[in-house]
């Protein structure tokens, strides 16, 4: 704890309850408090602000809101889109897909397209290949988006 300004920052970050501070910072703070009346005044002010912030009243959710939320299942049949989009990857591909998501799938699609094009494997169906590649590339983005929200 180099100075009062640093002490103030630590108070703002960790709060005024020194017992909750990381051990090393707490010991430094206690040493500063033992020799500095200004530091003790900062601690008092921080305790006061923490107390105000903790005590700010908020209303509980009212009965109308509870009723509206409770009615969600009756009013909102479960969407089927997520189920349709779900695609179960075989195990190591699933881990790979979770980590790299749509970007990797897009890259794989591009590489596959280049390979197919360069090898001249499917010359007469270029439009269909392009359409399918686009759909395949967009699928993992949607799945990845849902995973990101759910995780």
């Amino acid at each position, binding site marked *: 704890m180099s100075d009062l300004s640093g002490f103030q*920052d630590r108070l*703002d*970050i*960790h*709060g005024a309850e020194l017992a909750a501070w990381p051990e090393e910072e707490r010991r430094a703070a206690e040493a500063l408090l033992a020799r500095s009346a200004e530091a003790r005044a900062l601690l008092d*002010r921080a305790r006061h*602000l923490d107390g*105000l*912030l*903790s*005590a*700010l*009243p*908020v*209303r*509980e*959710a*009212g009965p109308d*809101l*509870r009723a*509206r*939320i*409770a009615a*969600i*299942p*009756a009013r*909102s049949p*479960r*969407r089927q889109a*997520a*189920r349709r989009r*779900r695609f179960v990857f075989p195990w190591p591909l699933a881990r790979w897909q979770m980590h790299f998501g749509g970007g990797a799938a897009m890259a794989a699609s591009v590489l596959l397209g280049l390979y197919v094009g360069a090898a001249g494997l499917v010359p007469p169906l270029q439009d269909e290949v392009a359409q399918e590649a686009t759909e395949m590339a967009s699928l993992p983005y949607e799945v990845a988006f*849902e*995973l990101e*929200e*759910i*995780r």
Partner: protein
Amino acid sequence: MPLFFRDDADDRLLARIAEGDEAAFRTLMDRHLDRAFGLAQRILGSRSDAEDVVQDAFLKVWDRAESWRPGEAKFSTWLWRVVTNRCLDLHRRPRHEALEAVPEPQDPAEDVVSSIAAGQEERRLKAAMADLPERQRAALALIYETGLSNAQAAEVLGISVGALEQLLVRAKRSLRGRLQEETE
């Protein structure tokens, strides 16, 4: 890897919700609604906006329960993230009149004079909070309303712990400044 341990009770409820169990949905709502609403209210300062955000979050719970992956995250933390993101997405300035409408706490032990002084200070704090940038207000709300640690709050906001700490420092500095100005 999420920082939080899963809550088995919530995971079990979500599994039942995924099967269409409406009673499980209501139980999950009872477990988390007040805190979710409190969080939204602290960030937005508006009761009606907070209601919209929380209702939308629970609609998402119902819609997406099938996609829940038990053991990968704690449901409450996911819910705080959804609520916080929805609040930040609103991009609205808080409504001072709504903040003023929040009832004052009653403390029968205090005498009338100190009670009035405490009420005035609380109103000043609410007004000062209403003028904070939303992300600073969200950081304070996550710490003081939901009781998350700094690391947990940072994960909910999708920022580093250092960035969260900067939000807290700036927010409290602003609040101290405002409270000091108004007492002089």
